[in-house]
């Protein structure tokens, strides 16, 4: 195949991925369960665990942004895919002349964009309200974009399980999401955790996303931004791989 045909094919796949993302955006962003899990949930967590305690704003706000991105980006896959499977519209995606990865990438994009939008809104609101200053724009951009992609991929990976009920996947997702909040330095800094907690936190992508966010606000971070970037990209790739394996295994 010559260079030109290959580029054309790549463009085609990209366009198809965007078409899938666009459709998900139109259909699922404004559904009540999506909004509840994406926005209400992190806020509830935030007020329950952070407000009223002696936590400095510098820790609080990056944490709030991190968990809203975490919850919103990962919610789209589990609410969209099972419904699509139930009405058999997923079959259309599978039998279309596109790569299975294109389907996954399209879905990841819709989740990631959702995370980005919600995260940016929270950010835009909290900066003036709390009179916060940004000290590292690059950290902010990296943090927002990579976290959105990585957490969206986490949701898609679980949504590849052949379930037709969003609640099933959401349950499993929350089983993973909730514990991660407490060991990823959101409300309690990682270095204040007991030794085992610190060890576990190293395996949570949220730790690195939140570290980038703290870099953005405070200008300091526990890890080098390069390491955090690499870890988030690595997690995303691993989720993609596992998601595709699940998809292949479970299809008739």
């Amino acid at each position, binding site marked *: 195949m010559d260079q030109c045909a290959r580029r054309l094919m790549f463009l085609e796949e990209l366009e198809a991925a965007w078409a899938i993302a666009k459709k998900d955006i*139109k259909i699922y962003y404004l559904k009540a369960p999506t909004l509840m899990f994406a926005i209400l949930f992190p806020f509830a967590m935030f007020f329950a665990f952070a407000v009223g305690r002696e936590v400095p704003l510098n820790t609080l706000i990056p944490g709030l942004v991190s968990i809203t991105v975490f919850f919103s980006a990962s919610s789209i896959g589990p609410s969209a895919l099972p419904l699509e499977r139930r009405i058999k519209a997923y*079959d*259309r995606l599978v039998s*279309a002349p596109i790569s299975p990865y294109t389907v996954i990438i399209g879905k990841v994009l819709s989740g990631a964009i959702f995370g980005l939008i919600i995260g940016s809104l929270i950010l835009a609101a909290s900066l003036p309200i709390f009179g916060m200053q940004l000290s590292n724009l690059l950290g902010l951009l990296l943090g927002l974009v990579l976290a959105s992609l990585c957490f969206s991929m986490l949701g898609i990976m679980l949504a590849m399980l052949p379930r037709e009920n969003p609640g099933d996947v959401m349950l499993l997702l929350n089983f993973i999401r909730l514990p991660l909040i407490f060991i990823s330095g959101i409300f309690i800094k990682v270095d204040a955790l007991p030794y085992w907690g610190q060890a576990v936190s190293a395996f949570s992508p949220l730790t690195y996303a939140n570290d980038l966010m703290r870099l953005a606000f405070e200008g300091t971070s526990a890890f080098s931004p390069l390491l955090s970037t690499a870890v988030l990209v690595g997690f995303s790739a691993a989720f993609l791989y596992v998601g595709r394996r699940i998809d292949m295994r479970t299809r008739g």
Partner: protein
Amino acid sequence: MPNAVELSGLTKAYGALLAVDHISFRVPEGEIFGFLGPNGAGKTTTIRMLTGLVTPTEGTAKIFGLDIQNEAKEAKRCMGIVWEESNVYPELSAWENLAFAGEIYHVAKKRRETRAHELLEMFGLLARKEDKVGGFSKGMKRRVAISMALINSPRLLFLDEPTSGLDVQSNMMIRDVIRNENRKGTTVFLTTHNIEEANQMCDRVAIINRGKIVAIDSPENLRKTIKSAQSIEVSFYGTGEPSEGELRMIQSVSRVISSGGKFRLFTDDPPVALEGLWDYARKRGLRIMGVNTLGPTLEEVYVSLTSSAEVGRRS
């Protein structure tokens, strides 16, 4: 001409159940091919294998010579698929549904829009194109689903029970569109429980029972397979008096029964018998008042094939 579909030894096992059991046949390009069989016979499973949704346990399937497993993308590009359920997006408008189908089938924007317009017009949905499909009736949803399958002007169209559960108007409209697309060169592969529909529309039909092909031929030829049941009913007027004995002498006629001024001629080859009958009438100065060929219907063939195969399997 290439074969639009060619399957050899295609098999799907679900545990111990052979949903599709080593089936092999070809569908030449340009044909309307009907796939008939009782519930659970394996029709949908076959289509799901042919469209790359399900991996065969054994055997191969080719679409225009392209292997559906190894050259999936190229093969899928030639197809349009209408599923058993109308799997449209209820939250999107008819127009948006069609646009989406066009996008994932790589149809350029201009072409997509002209085609969507044309299809919605054909299906009488143009006035409702901005409405959400969730509010559409069953028949309207099915029409949207068929339009989505046709958005890429496929060379091969799969339809799984396209007309089941719809009213007469919807069915007629859908059949017209299918015939029309076929006339323009699209090969059609459809499943149905409506035997009359298969009889009218299909160039050839395959009958599948418990995962096995039990017959495959044109509806005409299939009806001939139950030879004894074919007959011609004829009535005369004129001066001469026909006799049973004479009618019995006509070529290919095996038995004659007369009752109520009508004669019933049993034959294994109605066209030949009819010619003989004409000659006979002319020679005897008789005029034929009415003639009726009574055949076994496709339904009789279907019932006999699907029930006998079932008995055969049990023994």
